């Protein structure tokens, strides 16, 4: 039962979604719409589960003074503060929640990602070597695209933007299309295997 019921549920919901794509009649579209609403509700529960889980693990870490417990304490404090402020005072523009979001969360996350510029420059300097014909080809293409994607490249040689667009629209697109078609065929095959109960790894366990 533990294995059979989820497989039956997956079969019926999966088939309903596939059939609703081809038959837009209310007999099919109405139950499909209901199932989609259920999916939205179930996914929302994953957030509750996620928050509860991270709070539990972090609190456990803090209690036992495990490695880096100070970071976990900051996480729990931030989580509790934002949740309390959001629930008690609301999230409207100009409010406390909005102020913290725009003036603390936004700059902190933007800072983390902006560090990438420095790491990429350092990595390019240390690791990007023309060790083989393929690597040389990649290196030259990367340099052309980098110059073609900025206005100064256009000032150096007016052909850079056109050449960059050609790289994007011909060799890049050919490769991307091949990857996408391959991935789509793989997804169809995996989807069918799950609907038909041949692929059960999503059930977890054995």
């Amino acid at each position: 039962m533990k294995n059979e019921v989820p497989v039956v549920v997956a079969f019926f919901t999966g088939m309903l979604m596939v059939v609703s794509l081809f038959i837009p009649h209310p007999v099919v579209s109405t139950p499909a719409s209901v199932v989609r609403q259920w999916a939205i509700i179930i996914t929302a529960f994953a957030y509750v589960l996620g928050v509860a889980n991270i709070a539990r693990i972090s609190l456990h870490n803090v209690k036992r003074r495990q490695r880096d417990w100070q970071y976990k304490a900051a996480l729990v404090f931030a989580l509790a503060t934002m949740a309390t402020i959001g629930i008690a005072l609301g999230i409207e523009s100009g409010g406390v929640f909005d102020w913290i979001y725009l003036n603390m969360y936004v700059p902190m996350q933007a800072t983390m990602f902006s560090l990438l510029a420095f790491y990429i420059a350092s990595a390019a300097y240390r690791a990007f070597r023309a060790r083989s014909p393929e690597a040389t080809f990649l290196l030259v293409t990367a340099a052309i695209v980098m110059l073609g994607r900025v206005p100064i490249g256009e000032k150096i040689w007016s052909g850079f933007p056109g050449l960059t667009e050609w790289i994007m629209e011909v060799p890049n697109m050919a490769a991307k299309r091949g990857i996408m078609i391959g991935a789509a065929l793989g997804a169809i095959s995996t989807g069918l295997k799950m609907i038909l109960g041949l692929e059960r790894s999503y059930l977890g366990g054995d």
Partner: protein
Amino acid sequence: MAKASAGILFKFSRIDRRYIYLIILICVIVPLVAGVRMEMSVTAPVEGLYEAIDNLKPGSYVWLAADYDPGSMPELYPMNVALVEHLFSRDIKIICGALWPPGPPLAQRVFNELAPKYGKRYGIDYVNLGFKEGREAVMVSIAEDMKATFPRDFFGTPWDSIPMLQAISNLGDVKMIVCVSAGYPGIKEWVQQIATRYRISIGGGVTAVSGPEMYPYIQSGQLVGLLAGMKGAAEYEQMVGKPGLGLSGMVAQSYVHIMVVVFIAFANLVFFLEKRSKR
């Protein structure tokens, strides 16, 4: 003499990475502080999106998907601003929704900045429906019943109390989807789930790193246009005639790209010299 200069080159190739960081920092900060701007040619995907929005009739509705977060703000926020500038200037009504939790406050920040400038009122000319978890299921769900999916807006106002939404029941009432997308779920999923199935035009902006992945959809016509990275934002600002964060950021990006190309060229020169000297 030649040996000495080769020795200096080898020494430079093992330079402390903090010097590289310092050079990049200077390349970023100086152009931003100096406020220098550079004009550039506009690429076809950007022109395609501009024309698609420009051809919409005033008063028509557009779904603005704010599917991004602060991490991708330097590239995507200028796009969001330029797109809303264009939509407001054409008197197009905006219904904004997000499949990324941090998206709605960022979109609201754009509205707060631009609505007074164009005399636009919340609930009449634009609305922010907020975030809904469910990814592709939400896309298909709003395509069939928008009110059931977003019964309240971002601020908790019921659907029935928002005047501009009374003419809307599903995505069929919307002329176009404009997606500002940082990844999954984003513009690719909008195309896969909505474009062909419901025959709605889709266009938008993505980060530079995701740009190459979208070209097959542009060629197939499933995307009417695309802004890729800060360059896409800068080109769009140029077309709209509102220079902003995109155009000022492009000069900094120009210098950084030049420096990275110089670093690669120099490091490879030393690599070849070292290889030759070992022989």
